[in-house]
Structures are given as structure tokens and as C-alpha cells.
């Protein structure tokens, strides 16, 4: 009787759970990003990558800017007024047309909110016929690149309530939202009104899976067709699986040691160079990232054309040179081998965070390597907000951070933040270099490639010589797809995963 009761209960439990949708013809996607709210500045990237919402401008496979909702754009002769023309055949998922007026509302919202767009020198945004007119306070050539950022996605007026609060995502992309269960699941279906055609697969399910190991198992068990962001330890095993394809792309993200150049430990350039020379980048990348090509011999990876200079001397390990440099800076070994200067021990705290699982192990490797040149490092793993907080109050000594240089597709967007006067959260600290500030200002104002290239090269040289942040490793993105599907592309800028181009393999 008891067992019968239990069985009955089990059946009731099972029957009352919502039944899963037909899965056979659904493209199942898994990635690490949770959908914490639907405000574009917070999670717009999920809707942009999965092609639900679109921006005015997007990027092609090579990272060049190409039209999305804006079919063309132009700037006035004084470089102060930009016009973006909305394409005529674009429609929102609620059946209304994408108008310049609707786009201007979304953009003004982005400008008032949190996100990179609010940092552009914009005076006002207005609509004129099919055009959006953006007036600037000073020339700013990177504006179209800023309009790729996910916080500037164009949403239909029906996405907002009367108070202007977002209540749902009504975009214009090839997929529309069928159901959203925050924070983990997003179900999409094809939209028949997309200006770019009809998506190859009509139904897409996205599942947020935080654990890397679980994501790998989802790919291996066939429970997901497309899985993003694999851990380096899983990649070799997945490559050997005959049912799966693994694609890897270098992404414009560098793990750097942020040092406080205003502190007595890192105020001299020799000290920063010594720390750099003590780092065994090849060892770290080989063991922790399983790919020694990721050793960051300079700040920007080779895939960032024009920003990676083959002419600068590469950052390499040289313990003897490191010791000499520290001696020049006045540090001498104390009784226990730890360096001292004017009675002060070279003992610093290295702060990092676990949002990226590889940062804490890299931090402990750095701790051991710096000990070899007489620097005592304590590793502290906290929340990602502690680095900006300790930057603000000036108490940060050293931080290991992962910095993205394609927040907007033009790295100038990140450089403007990171190496301006006073530095920034994830950039320099206590390092004030007038030359690089001038270069960055000029780069932001011009669009001409021949003017920009020498300036970019000089910027790289300064960063390599001065080391306001010390590059440790570059990054890559591994994507696993099932052989059931074809047409998968890796977008190194992670703007748009082009799911609409994916088809079932024949």
C-alpha cells in the first residue's frame, strides 16, 4: 500500500510538471550567461547574440562595421552631426515598423542609462523622417562602433510600460521571444518579418548553464547542439569526440596585472618591468589555459590588426633581468629573501575575483613566480566589484583582471576609459601619461586609417615600455557544436552568433 502510494505520488509529481516542448527540431543552445533581468544595459548581449534584438550597426566576420537596422550613415563636414538612415523593410515582432522615432527612443534611453553609449560625447538624439540625427559636442569618429554595443539595441515602443520601464523584449531580429524563464531559459521562435530573410532553424532554446563541466557534458550527451565557452581542460576531450566539432577563436580579451603606480612598490617603471620579467607566461598558459600561444607578449593579441605591433620587444621571462631592475630601483634582499627598501618590505596583496574561473589559479602561479625575485604576494579572491572599489579609494596594490577590448568593436572605446587621466576601474591606476592621452584623443576624433595606424603603433609602444598594466595572457573562446548542425561561425567580438544561418546537416 505504501509503495503504491509512493508510486502514485511520483506519477502525480511527473504529470503536474510542465511538459518539455518537442525537442527534435529545436536548436538547443547552452552558454554560461544568466538572464538577470531584461534591461538592455544588463543583459542586452543575450538578446543581441541570439538575434532577438538588433542594433543600428553590427560587425561582419572580420570585425568591420556593417549596416544592421541602419542601412547607411554619414557625418557632416564639421564632424559634429551624424545621420543614420533606418532601412525601410525592418519590422518589430509586434507587427509595427522600425521607425527612426522608435529607434531614437531606445537610443535616448541608452544614453541616459548605464553603459558605454552614455560615455560618448553626445549632445542630443532626434528623428528626422527615416533618419536618426545624433549631434555631438566634439568630433568622435568611433560613434558607429558605439552603436554596435548591446545596450543600444532598438526595441519596439511596446517593450516599455507608461513609466518607461522595460516589461518585455520586442525586437526586430530573425528570432522572437516565445517564453523567458529567468535566469536560466529563453525559448525563441523564428520571425517571418525579418529584413534579412527566414532563419534556417525555426525554434531555438537557450539554457544558461553556469558550470563549465556541465556544459561539456551537455554537448557530449547530445542534450545541446551548440555550447559556448568551454573550459580549456575539456577542449581536448571534446575534440576527440567524433560527434562534435570544436571551433576556437582568439578574442580581444587580455588578462592583465593592474598595478597601483602611485604606490611605493610600483611607482618606478623599473619595478613594473621587473614584475613583468618575472612572469612565466608560457608556463601559465601551457598549464592553466592549455595553449602556450596565449602567452601575452604585448597587450593586444595578434588578431587585433593594427593594435598588435610585431616591432615592439616581446614581454618575456628573464629572472636575472628582473632582479637587476629591482636593484636599480633601490630594492635589496632582506634576511628572509624578501626585498626591502628604506625599511619597507616588498609585500603586496594581489586581489582577483572568481567571475572568470581561471583567474584564481593564475593569481597563485604569479604569487610563486614573484616570490622568486623576492616579492611577497598575498592572493585575495573576492567579488569583481572589489577591484573598482579599491581603485576608487586608492588602496589597491595589485589586481589580476580580465579586460575586454571589444566592448565596442573599436578598441579606442576601451583605451579612452583605461588610460585617461587618473586611469579607471579596469585600466591604469596612479599613472598619468600625457602622450598617450593625446594619442587616444586624436584617435577618437579621426576615422582615417593612414592617420590612425602610426598613432596606434605609438600607443602600443608606450604601453609596452611603461607597463601601466602588465599583460599576462590573451584569451580564446571555444565553441562546441554537434555534427547535426551546419553553418556555425565563431564571432570573436561576440556581437552576434548568427544562429539564423545555422541549418540541420543533411
Amino acid at each position, binding site marked *: 500500500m505504501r509503495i503504491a502510494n509512493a508510486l502514485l505520488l511520483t506519477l502525480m*509529481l*511527473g504529470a503536474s510538471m510542465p511538459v518539455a516542448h518537442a525537442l527534435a527540431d529545436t536548436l538547443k543552445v547552452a552558454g554560461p550567461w544568466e538572464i538577470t533581468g531584461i534591461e538592455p544595459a544588463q543583459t542586452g548581449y543575450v538578446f543581441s547574440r541570439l538575434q532577438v534584438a538588433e542594433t543600428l550597426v553590427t560587425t561582419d566576420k572580420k570585425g568591420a562595421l556593417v549596416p544592421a537596422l541602419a542601412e547607411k550613415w554619414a557625418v557632416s563636414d564639421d564632424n559634429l552631426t551624424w545621420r543614420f538612415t533606418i532601412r525601410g523593410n525592418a519590422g518589430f515582432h509586434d507587427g509595427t515598423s522600425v521607425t527612426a522615432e522608435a529607434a531614437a527612443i531606445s537610443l535616448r534611453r541608452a544614453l541616459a542609462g548605464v553603459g558605454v553609449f552614455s560615455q560618448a560625447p553626445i549632445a542630443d538624439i532626434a528623428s528626422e523622417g527615416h533618419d536618426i540625427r545624433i549631434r555631438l559636442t566634439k568630433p568622435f569618429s568611433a560613434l558607429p562602433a558605439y552603436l554596435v554595443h548591446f545596450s543600444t539595441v532598438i526595441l519596439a515602443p511596446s517593450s516599455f510600460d507608461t513609466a518607461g520601464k522595460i516589461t518585455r523584449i520586442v525586437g526586430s531580429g530573425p528570432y522572437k521571444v516565445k517564453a523567458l524563464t529567468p535566469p536560466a531559459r529563453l525559448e525563441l521562435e523564428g520571425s517571418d518579418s525579418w529584413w534579412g530573410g527566414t532563419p534556417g532553424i525555426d525554434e531555438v532554446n537557450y539554457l544558461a548553464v553556469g558550470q563549465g563541466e556541465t556544459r561539456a*557534458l551537455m554537448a557530449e550527451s547530445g542534450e545541446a547542439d551548440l555550447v559556448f565557452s568551454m573550459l580549456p581542460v575539456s577542449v581536448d576531450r571534446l575534440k576527440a569526440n567524433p560527434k562534435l566539432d570544436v571551433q576556437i577563436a582568439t578574442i580581444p580579451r587580455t588578462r592583465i596585472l593592474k598595478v597601483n603606480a602611485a604606490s611605493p612598490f610600483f611607482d618606478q617603471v623599473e619595478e613594473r618591468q621587473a614584475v613583468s620579467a618575472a612572469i612565466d607566461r608560457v608556463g601559465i598558459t601551457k598549464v592553466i589555459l592549455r595553449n602556450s600561444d596565449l602567452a601575452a607578449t604585448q597587450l593586444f593579441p595578434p588578431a587585433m590588426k593594427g593594435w598588435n605591433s610585431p616591432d615592439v620587444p616581446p614581454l618575456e621571462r628573464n629572472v636575472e633581468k628582473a632582479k637587476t631592475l629591482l636593484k636599480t630601483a633601490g630594492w635589496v634582499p632582506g634576511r628572509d629573501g624578501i626585498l626591502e627598501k628604506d625599511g619597507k618590505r616588498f609585500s603586496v596583496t594581489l586581489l582577483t575575483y572568481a567571475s*572568470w574561473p581561471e583567474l584564481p589559479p593564475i593569481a597563485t602561479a604569479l604569487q610563486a613566480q614573484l616570490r622568486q625575485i623576492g616579492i611577497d604576494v598575498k592572493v585575495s579572491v573576492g567579488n569583481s*566589484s572589489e577591484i573598482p572599489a579599491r581603485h576608487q579609494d586608492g588602496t589597491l596594490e595589485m589586481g589580476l583582471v580580465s579586460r575586454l577590448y571589444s566592448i565596442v568593436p573599436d578598441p579606442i572605446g576601451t583605451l579612452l576609459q583605461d588610460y585617461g587621466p587618473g586611469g579607471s*576601474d579596469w585600466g591604469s591606476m596612479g599613472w598619468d601619461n600625457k602622450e598617450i592621452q593625446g594619442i587616444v584623443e586624436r584617435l577618437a576624433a579621426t576615422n582615417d586609417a593612414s592617420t590612425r595606424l602610426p598613432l596606434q603603433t605609438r600607443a602600443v609602444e608606450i604601453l609596452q615600455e611603461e607597463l601601466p598594466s602588465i599583460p599576462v595572457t590573451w584569451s580564446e573562446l571555444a565553441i562546441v557544436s554537434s555534427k547535426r548542425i551546419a553553418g556555425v561561425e565563431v564571432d570573436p567580438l561576440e556581437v552576434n552568433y548568427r544562429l539564423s544561418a545555422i541549418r540541420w546537416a543533411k
Partner: protein
Amino acid sequence: MKNFFLSRLLQASIVAVVVGAVCFALMRALPGDAAMRIAAGRYGPDARIADAAEKVRLELGLDRPIAAQFLEWIGSLLRLDLGHSLVTGRAVAHELQVQLGASVWLAATALLISLLIGPLVGLISGLKPGGAADRSGLAGAVVFRAIPPFVLGLILMLIFSRQLGWLPPAGFGSPREILLPALTLALGLAAMSSRVTRNAVAAVARAPYFAFARYKGLPEAVVVRRHGLRNAAIPVVSYLGLQAIYLVEGVVVVESLFAYPGIGHALVHAIVERDVPMVQGTALVMGLMFVAINATIDLLTFWLDPRTRRTA
């Protein structure tokens, strides 16, 4: 009986006030700037957090006196309003309904599976203490209680998802997906409940009334059913209340591992991101659930054991 419900109601209201006050104090005693934490939770680790934090501070009025913020929370609670999450912007009551609901399903399924395994193993072990069944029951209990849920979950995934391909390693929404996380929790629960059952059964089997039932010639099955089960069930049922605590700590790990959007996972995020209304709402509802679970266990014991009725 009336007294019983009145005292439980009083207990529930005390729990509500104490949990609310303690959570409120603890969340503010934590080191670090709340606005920075909330900004990092909302906009992720690539954003300009310091700038975002200033906007968050203004938006949420985090600079107001702490006493005012606490009174405000108590006031809304009296109006049955748990407020809105500072990170996602949705109503806490709605988040709890979805996420706590998901966790309750998971916990209930786990408890059910554990009840199918634990007491049965315990009964067989306890009837012959020191026998082969008892010894292998002990070994199994030690192994499954000693393996952390994280490792056990991965092992189950490797077997049932990767090798056999029967069950998905992550997801939610259908019975197929709940089985692996529920089994991970259930094995840990069953490990303990099988031993508690075994000891209770062994104690009953040594009792004079049990021997008497045998001496008077009752068949073994009738002896166990009539004189064994009910007496042995009393400590096992009481122990279920304690297992609820194991479930709460277990769901945190298991939900993260299996990408199951339950309350354990949400609570960890809420604490890290200083989402105070979410933490307070969750702690409050969990506290009340413990009161409800304990009340149910007391009622069950009351029904199982007539002696408590005589003294009550």
C-alpha cells in the same frame, strides 16, 4: 489542538521578525560597498562599475539612515509586500514563486526517492544487526554521505548522461531533468535515514514486546508490520525534520551544478550581489517553511505515538 496551532502561529511570527532583523543586520555588516556589489551584479564584470554604482546609489537611496530602511521593510512586510529585487527589478514574491517553487519540486522529489531507498535499506539492516545486509548498508551510507554532492552529481552525470545517454545533465521543466539532481540529493539523504531507521528497527527488535509478539507465534511479516514499523517510524519521522536542513545546504550546490534555477542558486547570487530584498524575502519564506515542516512532523509524531496524546 487549538493551543498547538496558536503556539505555532506565534512561533512563525517570532521567526519572521528575528529572521528579518538578523538578515538586515548581517547584510549591512558585510564588508564592501553595497552599491558596488549591486552594480557588479547587474552589469557584469566588464562594465564601468564605479560609475554604475553611483547611479545605483541614487536610484535605491542607499544613503538613507539604516533605521529608516529597516522600518520601511517592516512596513511593506505588514502589507505583504516583499519588494523588488535590486538586481533583476522583478517582484521578490514573483521570483520566490518561480525559484522557490522549482526548489520545492526538487526537494520533494529527492525526499520521495530517499524514502524509497533509506527506510527500506534500514529495515532490512536493522532486522539482522551485524548481518551482511547491515554491513553493506553501513558501507553504502558512509560512501554516499562522505562524497560531496558536487562530486556525486558529476559521477551521476558521467554515468547517466555521458555513458548511457538516458538523462540530460542540466535543465529543468520536465521529470526527465529533475531526476539526476534529485537522485544526487536523495542518495545523501538516504545514507543518513537508512542508518537512523536501522538503529530504530534494531532497538525495536530488541524490545520485549517484539519478542513477545514472536513468542505468541505471529508470522515474521505480521510481527514487523504490526509491532515493528510504527514504533520504528517515530525517530525516523522526527529525523525528517533535520533532513530538511541537509536539503537546504544540498540544493545550493546541486542547483548550480545542474543549472537548475532554484532558490539555493538564487540565494547565493543574491548574497554576493547584495540584493537585500531578495535575501530577506528568501530567508523569511525559508524560515516559515521550517516552522511548517516542524509543525507537520510534530503532528505526524502525535498521530504515530499515542503516548504523546496522553501526556498532552
